[in-house]
């Protein structure tokens, strides 16, 4: 099966803890993304990686960091979580960055984070 996979599905933690979310795509894509979706369903791009190079890094807090071992994996680490980090974190991938029109993004099911 070719798709975007995320683990865990759901994570509850306390303020100050460190968390890490995994994302793997089996679509053979070159670019992967992390989005944050808040309780109002607003989607905000956080990071994207193209061939292991960080090419978009929006103004997210420094406690967030993307980690990639190869083009099929892009993990997200949050050091010292805060209550406002509670959200759904969505991973996505697409096939090519260089065209005049951005390719379709394929999303995973998301990781729901609750910070107590």
């Amino acid at each position, binding site marked *: 099966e070719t798709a975007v996979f995320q683990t865990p599905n759901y994570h509850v933690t306390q303020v100050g803890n460190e968390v890490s979310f995994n994302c793997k795509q089996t679509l053979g894509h070159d670019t992967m993304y992390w989005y944050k979706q808040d309780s109002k369903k607003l989607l905000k791009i956080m990071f994207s990686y193209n061939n292991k190079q960080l090419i978009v890094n929006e103004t997210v807090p420094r406690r967030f960091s993307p980690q990639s071992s190869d083009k099929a994996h892009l993990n997200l680490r949050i050091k010292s979580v805060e209550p406002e980090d509670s959200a759904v974190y969505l991973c996505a991938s697409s096939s090519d960055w260089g065209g005049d029109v951005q390719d379709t993004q394929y999303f995973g*099911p998301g990781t729901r984070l609750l910070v107590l």
Partner: protein
Amino acid sequence: SQLAEENLWALSVHEGESVTVNCSYKTSITALQWYRQKSGEGPAQLILIRSNERDNRNGRLRATLDTSSQSSSLSITATRCEDTAVYFCATDPQGGRALIFGTGTTVSVSP
């Protein structure tokens, strides 16, 4: 900064009826994509429409694009309960490197 937004937070229709979701954006784009997100899932693309196109169809779905008014619409005909979802437009800004997602419109289709 660019903003894309759907015009209504929520729409409710009955099965078999048609529904239209509208989107407006604020800067020049190369294309606009429509996505659908069902409960518990990630968004999935429905249609891509380029800036030089006015109309694009995919089965029961039809997207239009008016670059002069910087707006787009997504129409669904013969709706089904499984069309219940949040619908997003996502713009592909000229010179940009990331999609900008709208605020989303929740469409509820009841039997």
